[in-house]
């Protein structure tokens, strides 16, 4: 259902949306025409993020399709899971409190078109990352006629 939208974008936009390893190349130190060379972890260091958050372990993964839904608009994106479980029930109101500034960042606000760009993002922040394999469906031939197919004479007659 996202397809018509995607196609109506101008060519430039399409180039942006198409999953390509370009961002990774851009960020690597070898990019010749980049204005600034960014070394791994450098962004994190100059950004004022506290040190303890620069040594985090993150998991890069591509969320699976919800089994109960057909829609594929959100399938194929890449997310960063900060493995944040620093949560507790606020004893006064029963709301959930967290001590982790990244608790609501990964799933909700970071989306990448490819594993490479997610990796590049993690690298420039200096996070230790693991990329999980994306499981994709396997299409197999199916046919409506299977339902009514003649399954041959009875076995007794065969013998």
């Amino acid at each position: 259902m996202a397809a018509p939208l995607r196609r109506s974008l101008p060519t430039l936009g399409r180039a942006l949306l198409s999953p390509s390893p370009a961002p990774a190349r851009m960020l690597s130190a070898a990019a010749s025409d980049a204005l600034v060379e960014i070394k791994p972890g450098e962004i994190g260091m100059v950004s004022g993020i506290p040190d303890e958050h620069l040594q985090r372990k993150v998991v890069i993964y591509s969320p699976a399709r919800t089994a109960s839904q057909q829609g594929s608009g959100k399938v194929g994106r890449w997310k960063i899971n900060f493995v944040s479980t620093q949560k507790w029930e606020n004893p006064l109101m029963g709301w959930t409190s967290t001590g982790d500034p990244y608790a609501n960042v990964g799933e909700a606000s970071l989306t990448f078109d490819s594993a490479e760009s997610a990796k590049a993002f993690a690298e420039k922040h200096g996070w230790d990352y693991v990329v999980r394999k994306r499981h994709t469906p396997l299409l197999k031939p199916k046919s409506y006629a299977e339902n009514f197919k003649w399954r041959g004479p009875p076995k007794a007659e065969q013998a």
Partner: protein
Amino acid sequence: MPATKATCNKCIFDGNLLQTKIHNIGATLVGVDKFGNKYYEKLHDTQYGRHRWVEYAEKGRYNASQVPPEWHGWLHHITDSTGDELLEKNAKAYIVDHKENFSGEGEELIYHSKGHALNPGQRDWTRYQPWEPKKEEAS
């Protein structure tokens, strides 16, 4: 009783009641609410905007939150319908009794949120049930 004495002292000292009583001369008593607060109005010979006032039933610890909502509108010139008229017009079964604001009147009178230690039915928000070693002794 010392308490009565104290209240009497207060109403004499702050002079508020006395002033109200003087003000009341020549004013119309528009109504009395269920708490006994008296509502006065004086249309002539008084500054417009100060022509409606209340004489609190509580002589000592009076405060504005003792005015029930039906009279609030009249008192603050939001409406010209008096509290009695409003009650007659929309008597709703679900309207709860007015309660004054008890802030500063003692912990037991104040609302505490569900998890607050002073809430008598303090709620435990723990979302799991821990294993109790005592059960094992019983079994």
